[in-house]
């Protein structure tokens, strides 16, 4: 691994982020990243955070048109409440703060505590829970669906609304609409290696794959022998469409887990598109790349958001962050 010592990977990454992006204010000690011009007067602020190891999520999405602040936790470990409170205090202009929370027990509990503390400090806080991963059955017998690729859609679209001056309830409602209309499914072709463990978190022989994986190196729902990109696209798209029959053209994220070459990811996109075409689901916009990653895991995920016209307009709105940038 390209690291100094496992203990410092998150701090080292933040130092490097600060060096590369003078347009961000990075508090390496407190692990808080905010846009340099925060708080933006009158603007609702968006704060997200989660375990590290999913870069560019979330710090790479801080900037005009998306997040105002991000709190990176340890690798695959949700951040602690003090980080979130600090971030909220740094970005709140008085218009309130939306916490974008991926649905994992740790993230939920820590953000919940942070929301209480922030409200004690007089900050108005709303929360949206992202739970798009259809590999997990949402039932009494699980912690509920995980938040994965849809987080990017939520942060971009709600961020655009906030940038336009929408009030907190409206930004929150839009974020929730994106969640309601988004589904994901992920596949691992290899395990990832965490710095703390120093090696793969599970044992996946080459030629086998895990269907329905999350983004924390946990094994998936099912192990299979090798499948072609076309077969994987069928499983992933059908898992998503089983749960969401979009009547609107969709936003499509074909996401790499980190270790899959971009060449393969584009090839996979071709197969995903083929399957969506066959299922008569029109695609309005496509994003292909490593956006919600799992360290060096080989694999991919498919996220679909049934985007109405307003969501599409907000998706197309200008954004200027380290990892997502257009329109300005």
């Amino acid at each position, binding site marked *: 691994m390209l690291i100094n010592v*496992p203990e410092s990977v998150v701090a080292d990454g933040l130092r490097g982020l600060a060096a590369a992006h003078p347009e961000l204010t990075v508090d390496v000690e407190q692990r808080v990243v905010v846009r340099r011009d925060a708080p933006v007067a009158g603007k609702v602020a968006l704060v997200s955070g989660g*375990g590290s190891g999913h870069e560019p999520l979330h710090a790479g999405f801080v900037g005009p048109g998306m997040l105002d602040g991000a709190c990176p*936790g*340890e*690798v*695959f*470990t*949700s*951040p*602690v*409440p*003090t980080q979130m409170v600090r971030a909220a205090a740094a970005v709140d202009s008085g218009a309130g703060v939306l916490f974008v929370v991926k649905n*994992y*027990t*740790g993230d939920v*509990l*820590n953000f919940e*505590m942070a929301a209480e503390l922030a409200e004690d400090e007089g900050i108005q806080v709303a929360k949206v829970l992202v739970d798009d991963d259809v*590999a*997990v*059955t949402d039932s*009494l*017998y*699980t*912690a509920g669906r*995980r938040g994965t690729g849809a987080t990017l859609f939520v942060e971009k679209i709600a961020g655009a609304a906030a940038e336009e001056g929408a009030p907190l309830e409206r930004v929150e409602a839009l974020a929730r609409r994106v969640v309601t209309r988004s589904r994901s499914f992920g596949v691992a072709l290899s395990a990832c290696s*965490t710095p*703390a*463990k120093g090696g793969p*978190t*599970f044992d996946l022989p080459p030629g086998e794959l895990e269907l329905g994986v*999350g983004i*924390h*190196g*946990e*094994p998936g*729902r099912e192990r299979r022998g090798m499948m072609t990109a076309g077969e994987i696209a069928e499983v992933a798209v059908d898992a998503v469409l089983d749960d969401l029959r979009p009547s609107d053209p969709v936003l499509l994220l074909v996401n790499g887990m980190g270790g899959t070459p971009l060449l393969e990811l584009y090839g996979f996109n071709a197969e995903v598109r083929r399957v969506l075409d066959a299922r008569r689901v029109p695609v309005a916009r496509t994003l292909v790349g490593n956006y919600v990653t799992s360290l060096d895991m080989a694999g991919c995920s498919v996220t679909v958001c049934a985007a109405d016209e307003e969501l599409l307009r907000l998706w197309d709105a200008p954004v200027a962050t380290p990892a997502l940038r257009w329109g300005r």
Partner: protein
Amino acid sequence: MSTETYGAAFAVRWMDGVAAAVEREAGRLTDLDAAIGDADHGANLKRGFAAVAEALAKEPPATPGAVLVTAGGLLIATVGGASGPLYGTLLRRAGKALGEAGEVSRAELADALAAGVAAVGRLGGAVPGDKTMLDALTPAVEALRESFAAARSAAEAGALATVPLRARKGRASYLGERSVGHRDPGATSSVLLFAALEEAAAG
């Protein structure tokens, strides 16, 4: 029936003992978490209890309750993940229940920890049988009314009993049937908590 009481020094010894045990067993906890979670439970607790031990060494609070409140707050502030708020709440709530007393009995400690375990249940929404730390914590605080040793072995039995369970809470629940056959990392770290308690009580 023992009438011994336990003060702040005892509570500090307990927390130091947990810190040492977690440091020693971090690899094992992480490996357990790798199998059905995300391979960070050992690192998480190591970070948290190291911070606790350091803070307590610097400025030891005057009462056992204050020790536990401080420890719980530090776990919340340094661990993150699911275990940070949960263990943090356990100790904070227990510490608060002990109040200002300078010395407490084992029975008082058991009552306080029972309040802590109840708070963990409310916070995380889990019940015994869900394959979480509660499977060790719940029988352990119950047995603590009997003795420190009984608490430790109840925790051990509880942790062992998580193996055949199917997880219904936390990250392991994502695995469904595939979580069966693995020991829960949080229940395993709870054993360390009660083993250290027994040792601290022994003096």
